[in-house]
């Protein structure tokens, strides 16, 4: 007698029970699974699981992903990761093929997360593993499929030819059957290799309630395949294996083109990173050793040999020579660097042996910051991209409706199977893939091209806005002139000029204004080291206040004098007026209630400024100069450049002018002192290599210290937007014509697929042509 056990769920007796971890018996797996489900959802109805408290120890990691087809795939992975217990946050970046996860290491480990992603049919690599090149994997699939597809085409042509040439006879009917079977055998691997990824993407999009072109293609290809298989089994005449296989093949080629284009696009970022070495030769008190750059403390001394790239940002301590900075600035001519100069990670020492005092490593270096900004740029979508997405989202239901209409119409006149084929053609030709692909790609390439030229554009929407700029404001200080300013006149009342200069330099030393930097530099050049000051305060648009040995020092322009109620002796006022007439910037310095001296600073205009303004005018842009300097200095600029100059402005007045201007406005400044003005503009452009790129309040950062980048960038943006419009118009017209043919039943599905790929190819080629923009 067999012992009987009662199932703990359904209560039926069983002779072969299953046991769960707690030892409870079940009659079958279904009962066990249901019991588990009941247990796992035992929470009372209406209650939402509380978010895990933020103070629990979490870790962050990045998984590399593969085999993603469209954004629906990233959505699926993201949702799956988010629903894994122990995961606090999950974000998937489709472009970078990365998943960023914040998780509780006590409850889940990375291996399990990767496994969950893999179970969805995607690839996932743990940090440290080398992800397989996606393009290569795709090419492999395509190559294998090519063999089968060629086979299918040859066989199909024989069959087409048999009908067309009137050679069909009952004697050869068995041969037709045989060919049909070979077609099936050849199509099957293609369906698996190329069809399954598309099917998965299509189904996921459907699940997400955002059906896209992949949904349509999957439906089309698999319905053709299943219909053909049915016809083959039932011995009917028509099979469409060629259509199904060719369709998948061509669509995958389109996808491959897309992957390739994106890879090309992201090369600039990668090149940046690849050139920054991971190790540095550290000259520590204990001797020299090679260490990973991450462990270098600030101030560490690092040696770089000729031909080597700098591993860190830093200041040259010893050594001199040419440095190739083209990676950052796009400038091919090497720059001479000597002790005291700043060098950057990723730039290459051409012929010098340097010892560098580290100031920043890794992500804090300029190269690291650029990398991070570019990374961020990929996350954001420009309005015109969203427009393309919306159009695409509208096209899909439209295409489906049209296809259904085509099917219904033709099924009544031509029969079900031709009707199905016509409907398939309609689906294919109406697919807005070229539309969805072209726009982001174009903007992307534009962004990369700008980066290569040493211009950092924060995101693609900046490029879109740049194309519309019709008015460019220059903030004179530091942007129209070449650094450094030259101290060319010092007039004092009583004191020794050097002692005077020492005090002024002391007050200006903490300031970051170009005038201040010039004064401090001049003092140092005369062997004066400015003593430290207390209670330093910078008044924007006026000057600085600081305390030295109990004395309050005021250094700045007339507005500061008024603010501080210092008396200005008439002789000094006269000197100041003369200096101003000569076109210099004038700085007053005073203490003890009186102005004690005047300093005149000369500015060398940038050599390229005339050319830049001419080019901007040629582009149809108004150019205006805004400056806080005195009107007389402004007049000199107005004369020299023949453009309107508004001088003597406070930062508030500058903003007012900018906001008054009609149409999209770009403001060019140094990014540090004129943050409000840059922020007020539609486009803020910061000039000059700044080590603090990420903090500059600008949409565009000219890393290369050359204003000619501005008209170039405007032209690039316009060219990019022109391409976007061209591509949209092209896709629209092309699809409309194709659609007409397809609805009329004049377009074979294979031809429709060909047309689609050709359109994609054309559009991507057009976008990639922007890479050669000069």
């Amino acid at each position, binding site marked *: 007698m067999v012992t*009987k056990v009662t*199932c703990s*769920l*359904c*209560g*039926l*007796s*069983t*002779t*072969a029970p*299953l046991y769960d971890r707690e030892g409870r018996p079940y*009659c*079958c*797996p*279904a*009962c*066990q*699974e*249901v*019991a*588990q*489900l*009941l247990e*796992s*959802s035992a929470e009372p*109805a*209406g209650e*939402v699981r509380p978010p895990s408290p933020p103070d629990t120890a979490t870790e962050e990691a990045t998984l590399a992903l593969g085999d993603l087809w469209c954004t629906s795939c990233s959505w699926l992975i993201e949702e799956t990761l988010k*629903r894994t217990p122990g995961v606090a946050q999950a974000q998937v970046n489709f472009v970078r093929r990365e998943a960023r996860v914040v998780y509780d290491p006590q409850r889940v480990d990375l291996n399990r997360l990767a496994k969950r992603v893999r179970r969805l049919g995607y690839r996932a690599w743990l940090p440290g593993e080398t992800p397989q090149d996606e393009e290569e994997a795709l090419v492999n699939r395509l190559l294998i499929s090519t063999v089968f597809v060629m086979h299918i085409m040859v066989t199909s042509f024989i069959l087409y030819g048999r009908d067309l040439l009137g050679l069909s006879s009952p004697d050869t009917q068995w041969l037709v059957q045989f060919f049909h079977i070979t077609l099936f055998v050849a199509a099957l691997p293609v369906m698996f290799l190329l069809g399954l990824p598309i099917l998965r993407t299509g189904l996921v999009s459907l699940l997400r309630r955002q059906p896209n072109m992949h949904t349509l293609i999957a439906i089309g290809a698999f319905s053709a395949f299943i219909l053909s298989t*049915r016809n083959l*089994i*039932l*011995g009917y005449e028509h099979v469409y294996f060629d259509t199904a296989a060719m369709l998948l093949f061509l669509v995958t080629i389109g996808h491959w083109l897309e992957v390739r284009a994106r890879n090309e696009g992201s090369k600039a970022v990668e090149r940046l990173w690849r050139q920054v070495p991971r190790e540095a030769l550290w000259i520590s008190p204990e001797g020299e050793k090679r260490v990973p750059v991450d462990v270098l403390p600030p101030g560490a001394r690092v040696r770089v040999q000729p031909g080597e790239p700098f591993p860190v940002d830093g200041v040259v301590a010893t050594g001199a020579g040419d440095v190739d900075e083209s990676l950052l600035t796009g400038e091919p001519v090497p720059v001479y660097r000597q002790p005291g100069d700043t060098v950057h990670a990723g730039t290459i020492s051409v012929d010098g042996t340097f010892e560098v005092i580290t100031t920043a490593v890794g992500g804090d270096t300029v190269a690291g910051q650029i990398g991070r900004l570019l990374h961020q740029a990929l996350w954001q979508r420009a309005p015109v991209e969203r427009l393309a997405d919306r159009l695409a989202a509208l096209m899909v239901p439209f295409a489906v409706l049209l296809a259904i209409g085509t099917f219904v119409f033709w099924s009544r006149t031509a029969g079900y199977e031709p009707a199905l084929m016509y409907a398939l053609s309609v689906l294919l030709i109406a697919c807005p893939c070229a539309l969805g692909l072209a726009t982001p790609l174009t903007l992307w390439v534009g962004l990369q091209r700008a980066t290569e030229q040493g211009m950092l554009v924060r995101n693609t929407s900046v490029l879109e806005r740049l194309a519309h700029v019709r008015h460019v404001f220059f903030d004179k200080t530091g942007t129209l002139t070449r650094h450094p300013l030259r101290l060319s006149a010092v007039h004092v009342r009583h004191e020794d000029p050097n002692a005077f200069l020492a005090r002024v330099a002391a007050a200006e030393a903490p300031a970051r204004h170009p005038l201040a930097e010039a004064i401090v530099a001049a003092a140092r050049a005369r062997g004066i080291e400015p003593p430290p000051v207390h209670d330093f305060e910078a008044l924007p648009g006026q000057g600085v206040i600081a305390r030295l040995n109990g004395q309050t020092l005021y250094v700045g322009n007339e507005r500061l004098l008024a603010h501080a109620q210092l008396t200005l002796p008439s002789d000094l006022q006269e000197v100041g007026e003369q200096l101003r007439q000569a076109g210099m910037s004038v700085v007053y310095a005073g203490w003890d209630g009186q102005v004690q001296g005047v300093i005149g600073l000369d500015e060398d205009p940038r050599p390229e400024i005339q050319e830049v303004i001419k080019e901007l005018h040629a582009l149809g842009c108004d150019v205006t100069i805004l400056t806080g300097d005195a009107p007389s200095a402004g007049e000199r600029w107005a004369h020299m450049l023949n453009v309107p100059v508004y001088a003597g402005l406070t930062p508030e007045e500058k903003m007012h002018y900018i906001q008054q201007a009609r149409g999209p406005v770009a403001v060019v400044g140094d990014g540090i002192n004129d943050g409000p003005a840059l922020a007020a503009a539609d486009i803020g452009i910061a000039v000059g290599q700044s080590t603090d790129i990420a903090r500059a309040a600008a949409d565009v950062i000219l890393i290369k210290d050359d204003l000619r980048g501005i008209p170039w960038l405007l032209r690039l943006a316009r060219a990019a937007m022109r391409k976007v419009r061209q591509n949209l118009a092209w896709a629209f017209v092309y699809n409309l014509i194709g659609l007409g043919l397809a609805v009329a039943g004049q377009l074979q599905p294979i031809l429709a697929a060909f047309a689609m790929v050709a359109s994609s190819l054309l559009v991507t080629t057009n976008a990639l042509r922007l890479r050669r923009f000069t």
Partner: protein
Amino acid sequence: MEFMPISLLMLGLLGSFGHCVGMCSPVTLLLTRPAQRGKSSRAVHGWLPLLHAGRLSTYALLGALAAGVGQALTRAVPQVRYVQGLLALVVAGVLIYMALAAAGRVPPVERAFTVLTRRWGDAVRQWTVLATPRRYHAFLLGGLWGLLPCGLVYTALLIATTTGNPLSAAVGMALFGVGTLPAMLGLGWLSTQGHLPSREVLRYLAAGLIFLFGIQMALRGLAAWGWVAHTRVGGIMLW
């Protein structure tokens, strides 16, 4: 095989009171949980009928698919009586095993679908945590419910396959589902009331019905081989 749909209805009725009451009542509980969580009464209204409509649709769909495959199979190996007979005998064997399983004498066929069952559980788990349930979710959940690997359903499918006609198989499977409805719609307590035979008895009745089907298939297979004579009752071929 005109009496096939009625047989399936009987199978559903007997089998559900025997087996499903125990297992699928908890499932009902589980799948109505999103409705309880939903705030809007509109979403909750009609949740249960939609749930069962979804389940029945899945059955009908599976029936049509199974019959379609069966049809394709019989056409793919046409006119070979011996092969047809062999197929019928194989089906008969499986049915008899299922009958024994339904009676609890051998391990249930569900055992073969452990992996599938786990997948099913994963899917349901994702669906039952819906934050804002909509009414069509009930239908989809019901459809998912119908996919739960279940020996009784598979038995019914196997029987439906033998009709060789997708439409009548779909109708038959839907009727099978209708047969399970009384047990599912809260009439389960009847079986504990003494007015009806006990669950174990109903279970044996269902097993017996499946066994008879198995015997019928076996006779058909033997008839195809010419070892027994074909028998008809009033135009309906028994075997």
